[in-house]
């Protein structure tokens, strides 16, 4: 048995999504911009997919812009709001310290272009406080961008409250909802969201396709020049097969949201309870306000990359926020934002589930992880010092 528990990185495609894509390779292969009937058939199909996606988010079809994925949607939303704000003399942006790099790197670049960025503290449990957002908003705030749910520690942010604050203060609000859509209820109206990014491959859709939702009335600058596609905001012949796969996967995920969440939550809680038995371990992120499929742990005295390579050899695919998995020397900015010291953050493990996972697979994980942790601790000079009392346990 091999257990895939890295669904926050990407998911296997659903059979429904694969089937939905197939006609677009050789049957409905037209260019939606062509005037002939082959093209018009594709244009109609595109319209249908747009309507399906909109319905899943509580949006209108004309508010859906298809992109190459979540990162592109984040880049476009943030750059657009920033540049439009700057035209009115607003050069301040509010975000959080543990956003995805698609957001943080875009903000870094804007800082170099003269914008001022406030990154809100996420606290030890990885939750942003709406009152902090309210307090940070200024006369010259051009945008608030806060992720719906964190990709590493799985915490779900109080998006509806933050959205209401932004709406009241008339500041555009964007949310990177890549980890949330298809997993928990997301409604752009109820949540007072002006712009939202999502990515198909996080909910059993294909890679390379995503959506930027942009509320009617919220201006959006063109991101890719060269054509009238996506209402002139994103040129390039539409990835119709990908879009059909996205729409089918999203519809499927949203229609089974509650049962999938219940299944995953049960498996998640089993893992959390089991892994908590390992001495000197800690769950990262708030236990209750977290994604149904997210389990994030730190184990003292070991390093994450060796942990996940040995887990792979034992039949478990997981991920780690360890420095060594990313090629940088600093551990995950998310775990550091939670206030964890470097030496603890190096020993992190993220298991992310989908509705395809089974209870039997959780048993395998719960057997493999303690074994590997014990093996690595046994060879760790850090663990030796902790056990001998030369150093004090931090967790």
């Amino acid at each position, binding site marked *: 048995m091999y257990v895939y528990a890295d669904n926050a990185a990407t998911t296997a495609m659903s059979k429904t999504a694969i089937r939905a894509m197939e006609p677009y390779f050789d049957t409905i292969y037209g260019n939606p911009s062509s005037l002939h009937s082959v093209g018009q058939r594709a244009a109609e199909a595109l319209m249908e997919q747009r309507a399906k996606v909109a319905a899943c988010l509580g949006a209108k079809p004309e508010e859906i812009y298809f992109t190459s994925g979540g990162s592109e949607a984040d880049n476009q939303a943030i750059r657009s709001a920033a540049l439009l704000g700057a035209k009115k003399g607003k050069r301040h942006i509010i975000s959080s310290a543990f956003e995805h790099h698609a957001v943080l790197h875009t903000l870094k670049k804007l800082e170099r272009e003269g914008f001022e960025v406030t990154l809100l503290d996420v606290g030890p449990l990885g939750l942003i406080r709406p009152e902090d957002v309210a307090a940070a908003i200024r006369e010259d705030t051009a945008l608030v961008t806060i992720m719906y749910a964190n990709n590493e520690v799985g915490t779900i942010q109080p998006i509806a409250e933050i959205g209401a604050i932004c709406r009241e203060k008339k500041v555009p609000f964007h949310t990177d909802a890549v980890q949330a859509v298809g997993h928990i209820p997301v409604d752009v109206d109820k949540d007072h969201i002006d712009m939202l990014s999502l990515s198909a491959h996080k909910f059993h859709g294909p890679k390379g396709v995503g959506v930027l939702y942009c509320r009617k009335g919220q201006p959006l600058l063109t991101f890719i020049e060269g054509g009238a596609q996506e209402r002139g905001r994103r040129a390039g012949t539409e990835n119709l097969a990908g879009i059909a796969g996205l729409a089918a996967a999203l519809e499927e995920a949203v229609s089974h949201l509650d049962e999938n969440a219940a299944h995953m939550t049960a498996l998640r809680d089993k893992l959390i309870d089991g892994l908590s038995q390992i001495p000197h371990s800690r769950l990262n992120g708030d236990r209750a306000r977290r994604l149904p499929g997210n389990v994030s742990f730190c184990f003292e*005295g*070991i*390093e*994450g*990359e*060796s942990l996940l*390579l*040995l887990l792979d*050899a034992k039949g478990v695919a997981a991920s780690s926020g*360890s*420095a*060594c998995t990313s*090629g*940088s*020397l600093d*551990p995950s900015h998310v775990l550091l934002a939670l206030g964890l*010291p*470097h*030496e603890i953050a*190096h020993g992190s493990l993220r298991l992310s589930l989908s509705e395809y996972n089974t209870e039997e697979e959780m048993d395998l994980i719960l057997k493999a992880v303690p074994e590997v942790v014990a093996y690595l601790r046994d*060879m*760790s*000079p*850090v*663990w*030796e010092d902790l056990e001998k009392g030369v150093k004090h346990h931090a967790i």
Partner: protein
Amino acid sequence: MLYSEKVMDHFQNPRNLGKMEDADGIGEVGNAKCGDIMKMYIKVADGIITDVKFNTFGCGSAIATSSMATELVKGKPITEAVKLTNQAVVEALDGLPAQKIHCSVLAEEAIKAAVKDYYDRNGICYDEKDLAPADECPCCH
């Protein structure tokens, strides 16, 4: 694959793993903040490293380079062991990804630190620069 077969072999089946109670020299390098610490133990008889053990906290390549470094010095005269370079460790492992080269530097330093400890314990004179780190680790220096 991120790593060569040799790296994976030494990572999954590390040679000379463990502690040594009666070591003649012990060297520990790196720090937990950077994510890797290596501790090497040597046993010396008649100027020969007769046994060597290691314990490592770190990534796959930190464990593999530790393992390979112990293999390369085991049974060698101490004068030869101090000439171990990180490049020799990298070559013996059929290469390392660029961002992992610092692990091989640590492995070289750990061996030298153990030898230095042996020299110090036994009052043996040595040239400091022979045991100085050959390269700069971007994290730990």
